[in-house]
């Protein structure tokens, strides 16, 4: 068990903010040399998991999309646990027993996990499960789970580590729909997290169409053939229930076919704005009107299409400040022969397409990206981009030269000048049929590890072996704001440079990452200072913080609880 200590608001004993730091290039070189991700699925005890599609030969569309998963600290012990969606079977077309919709693995704190699905009340749930997100929607101090399905969605309320399904009574089940990714965020800053649920297309076994690859091979259909279904938005009433405010909040008129969404405050007005990735439809940019309602303005802003005005197959999505402009950049995973979309905000709600210029475009052109997220892989202070890839047509290798079904992931390392370089190697580069992807520091050594699901396959846990310990991690607890501090902006200053982080759910595809934010320090010995902009409007400032700790910051308090990283996994000094 790691110890913890209480620190004052100003921590300056370990040096001054003006101490010199090494040049970024040297730093980057060193980080590159030691940046290794090792697959630890088996030793972590996750090798038994298999996603089930229920495929029986008819190539029903939903089979190609799952599965989801991610990290949730369900028992609030500070160790990220793992949740995975199991998929499903088709009742009239399989003799096999129905599969579990959910699998929950408790983190034992020693690099291993134990499945506790039944033990915590999540066993015996049968649904065609797809995505997962998590938040403390009832502000009672524990993480609740929201599962998207082909059918009614499921909300599992967590009461001290035991779950009860309350989707219908909470008003978020949503009727029969094919839901995909979902996101909790505080749209109206009322201290209760709201819920945005992406829907895909109007597909049922009854209206299934037969599609052929190159006219020869039965294949999975593409979404052009089906009507899109718009997302739903549920306003949190603060009493454990939600109201469907899709229309009232401005989300009713939308093309649907949504696979991912991400939030950020684009214009710095303190209100969360929303980006939505849609498959073969324009992507969306919802600007918050400053009252929890939204106006969509993607097409004119320049982020909805490729440079020729063509809609792409938007899948996973993330947004963050990745360069010194201080402006957010949006990243959207797309189909093979479509680059990952990269759009930098240039002010006034306008975006410029930087896919090719960022050097992400070309290397991503032949891969089909689902899960995608920004994280500081090498702890040098800036966001890098991970993309999980895998095609949807198992026979694509036979019909399109240069395109594969199982594909390597991309790990685009940020060069700090708006340019990225794909450095995926080793275990991370082994081809898989990637889908959902999430990150967390599951071994609490201060760097970020990766979880990726495979369609009709296993899950993969990649441990980041950087082991520099040169980061400061921040966990928020809201009081006036929502308990998770979702939608809070956390500014860290390292060697005078501002680093912008948001506490969020959403992003990526069908996945949930940890809510802690990580400030990589590079060669700097400490974080100069920290400012938290809470969604309630409160602002808390904290002083310098030495590397190697996770801070818990409570809204309105100047004292931080600091827990040292798990030093067992750090190299000796």
């Amino acid at each position, binding site marked *: 068990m790691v110890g913890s200590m209480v620190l004052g608001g100003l921590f300056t004993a370990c040096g001054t903010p003006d101490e010199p730091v090494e040049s970024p290039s040297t730093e980057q070189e060193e980080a590159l040399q030691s940046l290794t991700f090792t697959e630890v699925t088996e030793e972590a005890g996750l090798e038994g998991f298999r996603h089930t599609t229920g495929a029986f030969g008819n190539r029903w569309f939903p089979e190609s999309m799952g599965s989801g998963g991610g990290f949730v600290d369900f028992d609030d012990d500070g160790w990220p646990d793992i949740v995975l969606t199991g998929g499903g079977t088709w009742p009239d077309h399989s003799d096999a027993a129905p599969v579990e919709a959910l699998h929950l693995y408790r983190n034992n704190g020693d690099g291993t996990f134990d499945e506790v699905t039944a033990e915590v009340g999540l066993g015996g749930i049968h649904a065609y499960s797809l995505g997962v997100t998590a938040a403390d929607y009832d502000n009672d101090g524990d993480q609740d789970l929201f599962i998207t399905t082909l059918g009614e969605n499921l909300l599992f309320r967590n009461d001290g580590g035991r779950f009860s399904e309350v989707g219908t009574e909470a008003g978020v089940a949503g009727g029969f729909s094919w839901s995909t990714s979902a996101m909790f965020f505080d749209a109206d800053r009322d201290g209760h997290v709201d819920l945005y649920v992406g829907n895909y297309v109007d597909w049922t076994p009854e209206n299934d169409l037969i599609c*052929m690859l*190159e*006219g020869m091979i039965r294949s999975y259909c593409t979404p*052009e053939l089906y009507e899109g279904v718009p997302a739903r938005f549920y306003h949190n009433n603060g009493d454990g229930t939600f109201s469907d405010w899709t229309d009232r909040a401005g989300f009713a008129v939308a093309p649907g076919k949504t696979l991912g969404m991400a939030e950020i405050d684009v214009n710095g007005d303190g209100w969360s704005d929303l980006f939505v990735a849609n498959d*073969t439809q324009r992507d969306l940019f919802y600007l918050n009107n400053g009252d929890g309602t939204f106006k969509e303005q993607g*097409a*004119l802003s*320049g982020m909805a*299409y490729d*440079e*020729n*005005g*063509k*809609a792409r197959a938007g899948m996973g999505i993330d947004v963050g400040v990745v360069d010194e402009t201080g402006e957010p950049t949006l990243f959207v995973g797309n189909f093979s022969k479509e*680059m990952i979309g990269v759009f930098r905000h240039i002010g006034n709600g*306008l975006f*410029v*397409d930087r896919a*090719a*210029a*960022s*050097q992400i*475009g*070309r290397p991503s*052109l*032949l891969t089909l990206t689902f899960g995608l997220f920004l994280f500081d892989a090498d702890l040098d202070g800036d966001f890098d981009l991970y993309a999980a890839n895998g095609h949807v047509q198992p026979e694509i290798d036979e*019909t*399109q*030269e*240069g395109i594969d079904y199982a594909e390597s992931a991309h790990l685009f390392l940020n060069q700090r000048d708006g340019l990225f370089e794909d450095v995926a190697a080793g275990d991370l580069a082994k081809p898989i049929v990637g889908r959902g992807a999430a990150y967390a520091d599951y071994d609490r050594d201060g760097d970020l590890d990766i979880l990726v699901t495979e369609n009709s396959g296993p899950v993969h846990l990649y441990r980041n072996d950087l082991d520099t310990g040169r980061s400061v991690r921040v966990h928020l607890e809201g009081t006036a704001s929502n308990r998770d501090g979702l939608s809070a902006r956390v500014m860290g200053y390292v060697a005078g440079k501002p680093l912008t982080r948001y506490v969020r759910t959403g992003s990526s595809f069908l996945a949930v990452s940890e809510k802690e934010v990580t400030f990589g320090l590079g060669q700097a010995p400490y974080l100069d200072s920290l400012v938290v902009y809470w969604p309630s409007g409160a602002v808390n400032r904290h002083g310098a913080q030495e590397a190697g700790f996770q801070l818990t910051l409570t809204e309105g308090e100047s004292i931080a609880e600091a827990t040292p990283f798990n030093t067992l996994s750090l190299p000796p000094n």
Partner: protein
Amino acid sequence: MLRPSVILSLLLGGLLLFGACTRTGPQGETDTAPPMDPTTERMLYQSTQALQSHAFVQALALVDSAEARAPGLADVPFLRGRIYAELVRLKEAEAEYRKALALRPNYPGAWNNLGNTAFRDQRYSEAIQLYHRELAANPDPRPWRGIARAYVELGKTDSARFAFERALALDETFAEAHFGQALLLDDLGDAEGALKAAREALTYDPDNLEYQYHVGAYLVKLGRPGEALALLESVAEAWPWHQGTHYNLAQALMRLGRTDEAEAMQTRAEQLRDLQAQISHLENTARVQHRDPFAHAALGSMLRRVGRYNDAMHAYMVSLYLDPSNLEVYNNVAVLHLLRQDTTAAIRAFEQIVQVDATNPHAWLNLGSLYALSDQLDGAKYAWEKVLEYDPGNEVASRYLASLTPVP
């Protein structure tokens, strides 16, 4: 004036314009074109002309006739291969090109066209090998461009860049290679370089709307919307169906602060995008179901609807090749001729319809109108009388006929 044999050689080349009948291969091998009698030569010339106007049945009939007169002539299977390629019958096209090569191992353009069919079939590595065979036999910039495009598809950008450079080293005025370079540089993140290369392409092919569009789009991307505006407006005027141009125009207007105009332009771009999505779907269907005349006819109708008349004609003619008895498609072809303001061709098309179905009053009515438009009043009178013969109550025909009667 060019001699027919020279014209024939030019036209037969298709994607490759080799004029000489005798050339020496890389190993000193002599590849001599056998003599051709004037009638065969004329047939092949006419077949090429028919191919250019998408008259596939006629083109194939003429090439078959030429073969009957002069068996063993490599020009025949080569031309037939080109016709099959236009009909999206790629396997048959490949077989014909290989026949040409069997008859004449260095037949100019045959390896190149085999490369093109492999490329269209997404067999990129094979395409590269085939283009190299062409280069070994007949050095020319076009196979280098084909190689470059195949490397682009395979993600081998350095090799693609090298191949484009080789193409331009052989012919610096080769606009398509400059344009290919522009696309590649844009993909690689060098928008300035892309703009320069696209402008270079325009230097050698100034009327090319595709190049003009890309120059405009690169200017928008580079944050120079003011410079892009006039260019994009001119492309939009010529290509009112082109979604990308309208989208980039909207982006340029938005960045210039002309929000209302931008919104209107974006609305138009959205409409065009919906239409383009339908076209793409129909194109894919026609490609996959290339023997289905209805797939090509549906594509033709959608292309006609958006104003892409040349492409529409191609699709209709493929449909008619597959099902020559479809009078509805004949009618669509005739209407398309009218839309292209080619009254003579429209008359010919309606005449074909009434030859097949002499009892069709609608065709007679249209034919009469076209005769009248071209001052062939006797023909008009005859046609409208035919309408009344098969549809005695047709008031329009009666009114038209009455208008022909001189007022006393």
